[in-house]
């Protein structure tokens, strides 16, 4: 038995481990390299953990995420031209999802900006891109704004699922009304000061908790203990990937890269055309006028098989694109994926096929997201 998947064969010699690594070992986690870190992929089973987050609540160690911070009276002013969203409208205590583009209008990475104070912005970026983003941002700052790298001192736990909000109401003494979606505030959990952000990457309601690395263990244990009565479980990155894919959320490095613009990736909603200049703007304006040649689309296989990153996609017997993400879902929901298609084919209902182990497996383009939580 062997797998073609690169992440499994990658060397494990130089990988970083989060502060919770010994706890994951005790929970019998299976590990794999992810973005330079040795991370838990699952504890029980990916499908079972996926279901747990959709129906109850799960806690994830996502301390591989990179925390960078901009501090100073010119933080907002200097960060604003680096992103497509308009940070001048970002109120203190609120967060916004945004791509960061290069001069060609293509996506360096996507990330969340949290405005923690009038002169303080926290960026949470993908692990594999953190060095690149740090350098890119650092080179573009001037007096009045300092860049801090918090990767050694700050870790992140995500608590996601329908029971997440009631759980944190209990453990952090907050009310849901005071912590709306895309907000962040300082609270204490297990007696430790943390930032509690109502954000996530699963399609469920919930929180991301930013804490000092030394406090992660006690917070993790408090969450597992406090959530026991509602069936909380630790969740690995395997289910995080299937959850985000089912929620139609693209992954930087997989669905988004430096050859892709936000218009092609279905992220036009993050582009504030009414703001001032930003890096990549001219290219996007041109592309908006001329039209895009390919667009990220969702699809569902109509026969058995599992689409995976890099598999060719066919439309009317022509190879037109490649799968960028794919998975199998629990509860007989079948196999789904994302991939780039010509706009004419990127329409829900269009018949396509994915080449899987030499066999063209029929599929249908589907509307995104595949899953939307009940509100």
């Amino acid at each position, binding site marked *: *038995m062997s797998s*073609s998947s690169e992440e499994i064969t990658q060397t494990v010699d130089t990988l970083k481990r989060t502060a919770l690594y010994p706890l994951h070992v005790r929970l019998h986690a299976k590990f794999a390299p992810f973005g330079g870190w040795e991370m838990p992929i699952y504890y029980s089973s990916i499908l079972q953990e996926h279901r747990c987050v959709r129906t109850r609540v799960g806690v994830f160690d996502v301390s591989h995420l990179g925390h960078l911070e901009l501090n100073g009276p010119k933080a907002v002013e200097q960060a604003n031209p680096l992103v497509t969203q308009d940070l001048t409208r970002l109120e203190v205590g609120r967060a916004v999802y945004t791509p960061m583009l290069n001069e060609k209008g293509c996506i360096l990475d996507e990330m969340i900006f949290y405005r923690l104070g009038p002169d303080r912005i926290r960026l949470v970026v993908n692990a594999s891109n953190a060095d690149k983003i740090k350098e890119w941002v650092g080179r573009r700052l001037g007096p009045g704004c300092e860049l801090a790298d918090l990767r050694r001192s700050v870790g992140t736990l995500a608590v996601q699922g329908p029971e997440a909000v009631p759980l944190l109401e209990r453990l952090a003494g907050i009310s849901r009304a005071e912590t709306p979606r895309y907000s962040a505030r300082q609270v204490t959990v297990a007696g430790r000061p943390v930032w509690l952000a109502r954000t996530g990457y699963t399609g469920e309601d919930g929180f991301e908790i930013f804490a000092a690395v030394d406090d992660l263990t006690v917070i993790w244990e408090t969450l597992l203990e406090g959530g026991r009565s509602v069936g909380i479980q630790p969740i690995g990155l395997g289910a995080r990937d299937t959850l985000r894919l089912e929620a139609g959320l693209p992954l930087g490095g997989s669905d988004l890269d430096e050859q892709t613009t936000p218009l092609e990736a279905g992220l036009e909603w993050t582009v504030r055309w009414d703001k001032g200049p930003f890096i990549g703007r001219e290219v996007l304006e041109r592309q908006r006028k001329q039209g895009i040649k390919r667009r990220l689309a969702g699809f569902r296989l109509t026969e058995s098989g599992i689409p*995976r990153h890099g598999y060719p996609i066919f439309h009317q017997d022509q190879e037109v694109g490649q799968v960028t993400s794919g998975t199998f879902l629990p509860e007989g929901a079948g196999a789904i994926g994302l991939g780039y298609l010509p706009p004419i084919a990127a329409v829900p209902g269009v018949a396509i096929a994915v080449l899987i182990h030499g066999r063209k497996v029929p599929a249908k383009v589907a509307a995104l997201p595949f899953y939307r939580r009940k509100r």
Partner: protein
Amino acid sequence: MTDLNQLKFTKTHEWVRLEGSKAVVGITEHAQGEISDVVFVELPKKGKQVKQAEEAAVVESVKAAFSIYAPVSGTVAKVNESLVADPGAINRSPYEEGWIFSLEPAHVQEAETLMTKEQYDAWVKGGGH
């Protein structure tokens, strides 16, 4: 219950059981744990000829697709059709219900090149991949 001491093991985590003129093939308990959540099995065609260590089947989990190699050379005699509807049998019962295919071995003595249960366990424990 299968007596695991009667099986032979590959470094690629297949097991083979010689039963008269047939060699039955599956993956090990350790392998099913690594793969997790088997959701799809691509079985070989009956009559297909395979050489030792050649790909004979594909087992897919949520995580990735895994090639299953023939532990010995031979001709595919039977395939476990029940895995089409119930691929999870590989996780639940890797040595019994989860068998994948059987071969008419071309050279039975090839099995002697494989590991015993004890050797395989020691090899896995030593971090063998």
